[in-house]
């Protein structure tokens, strides 16, 4: 019981962080059709900016300023780079973001060095929030959940209660239609890209000190956010939310499984030959690759994703 | 007596809750030129999509030359000798005119997925593609990428790809849409020429073309065939006049 509750809490925290990252990507992917390979780079930039700002004026202003700066950088990149690449089609766009991810990492190396920076959790949030069955739950994780849920609500309000939000929603499912109705689609694209990257930046601000702020952090989450978007389904923020939590929980719970592949097959009545390496693998070992298995399975059997509105 | 080229029985298509095709029964005889007309939104293009398996059928049966084809994939239907064109030009944009046509003849000549034969050595494919190119009047554009052809030329290529395979049942979806009068005349002549001895079904808005080409006409209104008959009979059919001709035929003719 203790284990289940703690795992659930951990899974949800991780899932919410994933959602912060993937919500922006879903918006960008669905509206602009761009597989933004640099999305995780903005997450990294968020963490580094927050670190830099926190050394100057503290963590709290950084929490606000860093995502805005990241968003501004994102919007500028859309305006002066991506928009140009857009003319040459989706492959060019994708490769642009591919190259961008590369460049961002190198620039981070150059400015902040190649090892982790000392980006710490602020003292106010350092400590134990509550102790459950003698396992402590840190305040900071609670704070992360708070921020994610707050962001989720804000995003929901923005999308359902404002004009621009309604246009974005419409554009998610029917991008051509919105253009046909005479909206300034390039400007909306710029806003969405800026907004999406700002969300990634915010995830970086609160994820950077919870985990480690170092130049490899973008690559570490780079592909998992794609998994979330694909599993959740194109054009569906709700899907991304469900997929984030699902993947968060799958990863936490599968670690708890000590079953091996042999055991799994034994459950369905197939006995595998002893001793092969495959047979000895445990679910725990497989935990971090399970999302990819899930993604491939989803793409094969339900290409539109869990809650997707369209296929491509 | 041989089975009809196409036989539709109780054919239905729903998009969500809305019924677009609401029970079509129609036989297309072999060798006839059959036109399907009807007001916008009547479901003419949808009917074509169902026959050619671009869209899945909701209910009912379609037989192609006596063989049930519901549930087959588009390429399987194409291999059974049905070929269609599209209302919105649907060609291979980066390939040249000649390559477009050669692609269209390869399967029917039995080259399938061959990667052991040189294209250049396939004399029959070349000759057939060139013959079609001649017929649709694009010989001098042979090596031009299809994407940069003029609109009328692309429409001609569209028909060329459709007939190139030598299919004996041909579906043309608004072959003359958007053409000028002289272009239309040329197109009609060409269609007449290339569908000689074949079964032709076409959707067309230009009543001049319809009444000039068709042996029989079916009128589709709100997903149902309200009449099928020879052109002259259709012209006098009261139901047709009420539902369709009375309102829009004149304006269609005028445009």
């Amino acid at each position: 019981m203790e284990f289940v509750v703690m795992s659930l809490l951990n899974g949800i925290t991780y899932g919410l962080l994933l959602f912060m990252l993937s919500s922006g990507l879903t918006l960008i992917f669905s509206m602009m059709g761009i597989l933004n390979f640099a999305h995780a780079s903005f997450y990294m930039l968020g963490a580094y900016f927050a670190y830099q700002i926190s050394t100057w004026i503290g963590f709290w202003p950084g929490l606000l300023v860093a995502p805005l700066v990241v968003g501004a950088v994102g919007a500028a990149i859309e305006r002066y780079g991506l928009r140009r690449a857009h003319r040459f089609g989706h492959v060019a766009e994708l490769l642009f973001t591919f190259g961008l991810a590369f460049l961002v990492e190198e620039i981070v190396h150059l400015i902040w060095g190649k090892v982790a920076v000392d980006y710490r959790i602020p003292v106010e949030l350092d400590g134990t929030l509550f102790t459950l069955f003698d396992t402590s739950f840190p305040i900071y994780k609670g704070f992360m959940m708070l921020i994610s849920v707050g962001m989720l609500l804000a995003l929901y309000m923005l999308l359902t209660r404002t004009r621009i939000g309604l246009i974005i929603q419409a554009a998610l499912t029917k991008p051509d239609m919105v253009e046909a109705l005479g909206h300034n689609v390039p400007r909306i694209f710029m806003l969405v890209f800026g907004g999406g990257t700002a969300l990634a930046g915010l995830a970086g601000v609160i994820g950077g000190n919870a985990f480690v702020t170092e130049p490899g952090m973008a690559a570490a989450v780079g592909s998992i956010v794609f998994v979330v978007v694909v599993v959740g389904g194109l054009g569906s923020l709700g899907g991304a939310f469900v997929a984030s939590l699902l993947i968060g929980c799958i990863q936490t719970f599968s670690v708890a499984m000590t079953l091996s592949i042999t055991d799994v097959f034994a459950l369905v009545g197939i006995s595998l030959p002893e001793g092969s390496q495959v047979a000895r693998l445990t679910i725990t070992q497989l935990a971090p690759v399970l999302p990819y298995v899930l993604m491939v399975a989803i793409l094969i059997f339900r290409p539109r994703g869990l809650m997707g509105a369209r296929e491509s | 007596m041989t089975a009809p080229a196409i036989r539709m029985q109780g054919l239905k298509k729903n998009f969500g809750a809305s019924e677009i095709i609401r029970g079509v029964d129609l036989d297309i005889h072999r060798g006839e030129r059959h036109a399907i007309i009807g007001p916008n939104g009547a479901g003419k293009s949808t009917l074509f999509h169902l026959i050619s398996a671009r869209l899945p059928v909701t209910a009912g049966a379609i037989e192609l030359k006596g063989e049930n084809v519901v549930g087959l994939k588009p390429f399987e239907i194409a291999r059974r000798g049905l070929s269609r064109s599209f209302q919105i030009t649907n060609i291979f944009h980066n390939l040249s005119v000649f390559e477009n046509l050669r692609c269209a003849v390869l399967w029917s000549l039995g080259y399938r997925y061959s990667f052991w034969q040189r294209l250049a050595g396939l004399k029959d494919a070349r000759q057939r593609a060139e013959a079609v190119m001649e017929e649709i009047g694009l010989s001098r554009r042979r090596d031009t990428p299809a994407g940069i052809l003029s609109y009328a030329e692309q429409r001609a290529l569209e028909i060329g790809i459709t007939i190139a395979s030598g299919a004996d049942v041909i579906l043309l979806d608004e072959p003359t849409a958007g053409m000028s009068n002289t272009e239309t005349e040329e197109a009609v002549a060409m269609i007449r020429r290339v569908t000689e001895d074949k079964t032709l079904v076409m959707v067309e808005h230009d009543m001049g073309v319809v009444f000039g080409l068709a042996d029989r006409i079916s009128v589709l209104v709100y997903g149902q065939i309200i009449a099928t008959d020879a052109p002259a009979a259709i012209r006098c059919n009261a139901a047709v006049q009420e539902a369709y001709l009375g309102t829009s035929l004149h304006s269609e003719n005028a445009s």
Partner: protein
Amino acid sequence: MKSSFVKRLTLAASVMLIGGSAAAQVKIAYIDPLSGPFANVGDAGLKGFKEAAEILVNQKGGIMGQKLEFTGFDNKGSPQETQIQLKAAIDQGFRFVTLGNGSGAAHSLIDAVNKWNARNPDKTVLFFNYAAVDPTLTNEKCSFWHFRFDANTEMKMEAISNFMEKDKSIKKVFIIGQDYAHGHQVAKYTKEMLAKKRKDIKIVGEDLHPIGRVKDFAPYIAKIKASGADTVMTGNWGNDLSLLIKAAKDAGLKARFFTYYAGGLGTPQAMGAAGENQVLQLTEWHMNVPTKNTEKFAQDFNKKYPGIWFYYLRVNNMVEMVAKAMNTAKSTDPKAVALALEDMRFQNDTGEVWMRKSDHQAMQPLYISIFSKADGKTVKHDSEGTGYGWKTLASISQRDSQLPTSCIMERP
């Protein structure tokens, strides 16, 4: 390498066209990642070698009057590129190479060097390994042309298990590691050795996780906690280690972590306060081992290269031992140097280093230390500016880390 862009360009061009150049000094090619994700490790190593060569050899008269020089070759961490860079080094007249990062690259290099020497017996090359710890390199795959100056995984585990043997507070051990050769080896040796030395210790769990893929270790920690382990054994390095320690602290796990790699290259900084009194490491040296010269050397180094902390004493050992071998042999021929290195006993600041002849594995004193608050006395120096430093718990003489080898060496 202070040479200019243009100089390097012309050098590269000339090498491409004519190949080779005469050696005016003793040159060692340093083949390690100097760009990309692992560049920090490679960069720190290269600076260490340059500094050691300068202070420990060149300022003391050099090698038979010649200067010892290290030149960096960027293998980008790739085994394939390692071989290309080896060829580049050979072209430029290098007869000695050193590499430390990545067993993949080390295997690739040892293979390439063996083959090169077999195919070009008049232009042999010698490989000094300063950090690749796969035991096979001095066992099944041992080579006359390879010398290892770092203790291998198995020896390190021997030292750790000896320590565990005496510590009766250890009752339940959990093993967690990265799912690749190194992690597998650590797990295997832990189980074997503990079974021999302390039958009462229970292995309460064993987990392998894909390398560099886990963002949140909380579930693993939850599992460790549920198992009731008081001790965790891990071969993890880099972020996989820092994140593990951080997650343990978050969940209030009170177990001790025995590690291989907590001491350097950014890990202390990344784990910070989370590691206090919980993380132990095994190394050949740390800042708070009282020494005559090394302490000052390290301080000077840290001052000179802000942001990089001196970590590898074995780099100094290697530089001094190689220089000594060359001076003894009065030759810079790889074969003569190799013969002189064999069975060498060298007194460094911490004790005796012995290069065993049978497998070319260096035996050296090792230390087990714990991450504690710097207090200016026993923990005189902190690590990487964190306010925490390493406190020695036990020292192991080189004799106590020796293990038999299965090496059957082909000697030229």
